[in-house]
C-alpha cells in the first residue's frame, strides 16, 4: 500500500468568455430547471445504476491519464470527477450556484476527455465517461461551454463543417490537390460526386483548412490501389463532430444525418474516413444512435482498418518499411472504440510500445482547454507500481 498524500493542487483558473458570460446570465433556479429537465428526460437506468452502486473504491483511478499525470491528485480520478459533477448535481437536485457550475464545466470539458479507459478499470464496469458527458450536456443546454470549442460547434451549425470552410473553398481545395498530385502522378484523379462509387472518402475540416496535403496523400493511396472512389462536393463531407463533445446533440444529429444522406445520395457502398478518432466515434458509435440507427446506415471504415485491408489483400504493397522506432499513442476512439490497436503494430516498423500518454487532441487540447483552464491535459503519465 503506498500511502503518500498528494497535494490537492490549487488551480489557476483563467478567464474564458464562453464560460464567464454565460455564467453571469445564470442563477440557481435557471440552472436547476435545466438540470432537472435533463435528468428527467434524458437519463434513466444507467445513471441511476452507476450512481447507486459505485462503492467508492477508487479502483478506477489508475485508468485515468489525468489522475496519473497529476501525481495521483484525487480530484482527477474518474470517481473524483463524478463526485465533483453529477453527484453534486444530484445531491442538490440541480440547485447549484453559477460558481459551482463553473467548476463542473471545467471538470467536464477540460479534465476528462471521455476516453472510457476507466470503464476497463472499474470492477463493476461503471462508465464514468457517460456521466461526464451528461454533465457536458447540461452545461451545453445552459450555454456554459468553453469559447473555442463552442466556436467549432457554431461552425458545424452554420457550415456543416468544423472550420468555417465555405463550399467553394472546399471544392477549390480538392481541385488544387488534384492538380498538385498530377505533377507527380499524371493519371491521378480526385473524382467528385461520382455516382455509385465503391467508396466515399471523407475527411475532417482541418484537412482542407490546415493540412491540405493529406488529401493529396490519401488520393495517391486510393488511386494506386486502383479503387473506385469519390469525394463529395456538397456539405456533409466533414465527418468530424465537436458538437458531440460540447453536448449539443441536436447539431450532432444534423451533422451525421447530412453525412450519411450524402453517402446514400451518391449511392456509395461504404464510407472510408481519414484518421480522426473522435470523428470515428461520432459516425460509428454516438451520432448514429442519436438518430435512431443501431449502427451506421452506410458502413464506415476507419483509415487504419482500411489501410490494413489494402495491405493484407495485396492491393497496396509497401516498398520500404519505416525503420525508426515507433511509439503508438493511445487513440481511445479507435482502440477502445473499434479494437484497432493491433493493426498498426503489425505493419509499422520496429514497433516499440504502446504509450498510455493520451493526447486528448480533439476535444481538449485543440478545443476546450485553449482558454478554459490551466490544467495541462497532455502531461506525461508516470509508470506506477502496485497498489492496494
Amino acid at each position, binding site marked *: 500500500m503506498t500511502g503518500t498524500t498528494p497535494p490537492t493542487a490549487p488551480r489557476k483558473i483563467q478567464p474564458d468568455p464562453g464560460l464567464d458570460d454565460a455564467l453571469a446570465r445564470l442563477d440557481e433556479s435557471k440552472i436547476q430547471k435545466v438540470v432537472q429537465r435533463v435528468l428527467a428526460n434524458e437519463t434513466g437506468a444507467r445513471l441511476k445504476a452507476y450512481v*447507486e452502486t459505485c462503492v467508492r473504491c477508487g479502483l478506477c483511478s489508475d485508468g485515468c491519464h489525468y489522475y496519473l499525470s497529476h501525481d495521483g491528485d484525487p480530484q482527477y480520478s474518474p*470517481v473524483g470527477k463524478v463526485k465533483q459533477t453529477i453527484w453534486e448535481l444530484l445531491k442538490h437536485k440541480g440547485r447549484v450556484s453559477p460558481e459551482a457550475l463553473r467548476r463542473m464545466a471545467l471538470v467536464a470539458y477540460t479534465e476528462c476527455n471521455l476516453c472510457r479507459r476507466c470503464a476497463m478499470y472499474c470492477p463493476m464496469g461503471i462508465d464514468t465517461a457517460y456521466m461526464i458527458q451528461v454533465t457536458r450536456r447540461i452545461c451545453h443546454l445552459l450555454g456554459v461551454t468553453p469559447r473555442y470549442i463552442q466556436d467549432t460547434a457554431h461552425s458545424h451549425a452554420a457550415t456543416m463543417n468544423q472550420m468555417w470552410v465555405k463550399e467553394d473553398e472546399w471544392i477549390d481545395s480538392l481541385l488544387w490537390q488534384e492538380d498538385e498530385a498530377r505533377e507527380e502522378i499524371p493519371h491521378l484523379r480526385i473524382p467528385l460526386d461520382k455516382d455509385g462509387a465503391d467508396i466515399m472518402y471523407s475527411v475532417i475540416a482541418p484537412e482542407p483548412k490546415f493540412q491540405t496535403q493529406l488529401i493529396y496523400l490519401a488520393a495517391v493511396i486510393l488511386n494506386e490501389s486502383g479503387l473506385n472512389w469519390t469525394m463529395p462536393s456538397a456539405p456533409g463531407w466533414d465527418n468530424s463532430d465537436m458538437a458531440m463533445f460540447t453536448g449539443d446533440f441536436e447539431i450532432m444529429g444534423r451533422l451525421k444525418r447530412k453525412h450519411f444522406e450524402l453517402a446514400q445520395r451518391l449511392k456509395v457502398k461504404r464510407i472510408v474516413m481519414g484518421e480522426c478518432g473522435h470523428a470515428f466515434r461520432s459516425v460509428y458509435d454516438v451520432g448514429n444512435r442519436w438518430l435512431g440507427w443501431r449502427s451506421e446506415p452506410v458502413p464506415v471504415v476507419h483509415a487504419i482498418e482500411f489501410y490494413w485491408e489494402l495491405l493484407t489483400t495485396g492491393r497496396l504493397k509497401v516498398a520500404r518499411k519505416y525503420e525508426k522506432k515507433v511509439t503508438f499513442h493511445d487513440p481511445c476512439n479507435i482502440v477502445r472504440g473499434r479494437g484497432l490497436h493491433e493493426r498498426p503494430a503489425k505493419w509499422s516498423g520496429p514497433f516499440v510500445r504502446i504509450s498510455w500518454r493520451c493526447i486528448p487532441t480533439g476535444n481538449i487540447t485543440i478545443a476546450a482547454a485553449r482558454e478554459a483552464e490551466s490544467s495541462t491535459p497532455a502531461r506525461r503519465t508516470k509508470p506506477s507500481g502496485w497498489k492496494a
Partner: protein
Amino acid sequence: MHAVYGFVVGPLAWIAGAVFVLGLVFRLWVFYDLARRKDPMVLEYMSPKYALRSILHWSIPFHPVNSRRHPVMTAVTFLFHLSLVFTPLFLGAHMMLMDYYHGLSWPTLPDPLADLLTVVVIGACVFFGVRRVVRPEVRYVTTAKDWAILVLVALPFVTGFLAYHQIGPYQAMVVLHILSGEGWLMAIPFTRLSHMMLAPFIRGYIGSEFGAVRHARDW
C-alpha cells in the same frame, strides 16, 4: 430476553427475508422498467455472449489488468466476498436453526473453518476501512454512508464471532447478531450493497458495448 429472541428469530426473520427478496425483485423491476422507458439503448445493445464474456473474465482474480495492479486489494476482495456469502449459508448453527424451525438441512462447513472465514470477513472490513483513510483517491470520495455500510456488513460477523466464542453477554450478543444480520439483509436492495444484484448487469452492459460494438476487451 426470551421474548426479544423469539421476535428476532420469528416474525422479524420473516420480515427481513421478505424485504430482502421482494426488495431485490422490486428494484430489478424498477431498473428494467427505467431502462425500457428511458434507456432503451441498454436493452438494445445488451449481448448475452459479450456480457457473459466480460463477467467471466472479471470473475477470475488476477486476470483483469487492474486486478493485477492491486494484488492485495484483489486478494482481499475475492476472499471477502466468498466468505461473506458462504459463511452464513453454510454455518452449522444456521443450518440447525433452519432444521429446527423448518426441517431443512444441508451440508455445512466445519466450525473452525467457519470461524476462520468470519475472521477473514472482519479482517477485510478493517482493511477496507484503513484503505478509506490512507488512500487519498478513496478518502476523497468516502462519505458517512460508506462507513455506515462497512459497519453494517461487519457487525453480524463481529457479533457472531463474539457469541460463538462466548465473549461478552451471550444472549444479548446473539440477539444483536441476529438483528444486525437482518438489518444487513434488508439494506442490500436499497443501498450501495445492491451492487450484489446490479453489478452483473452493469458489467454485462459495458461488456456488450466493448465486445459487440467496439470489438475491444474490457478487462
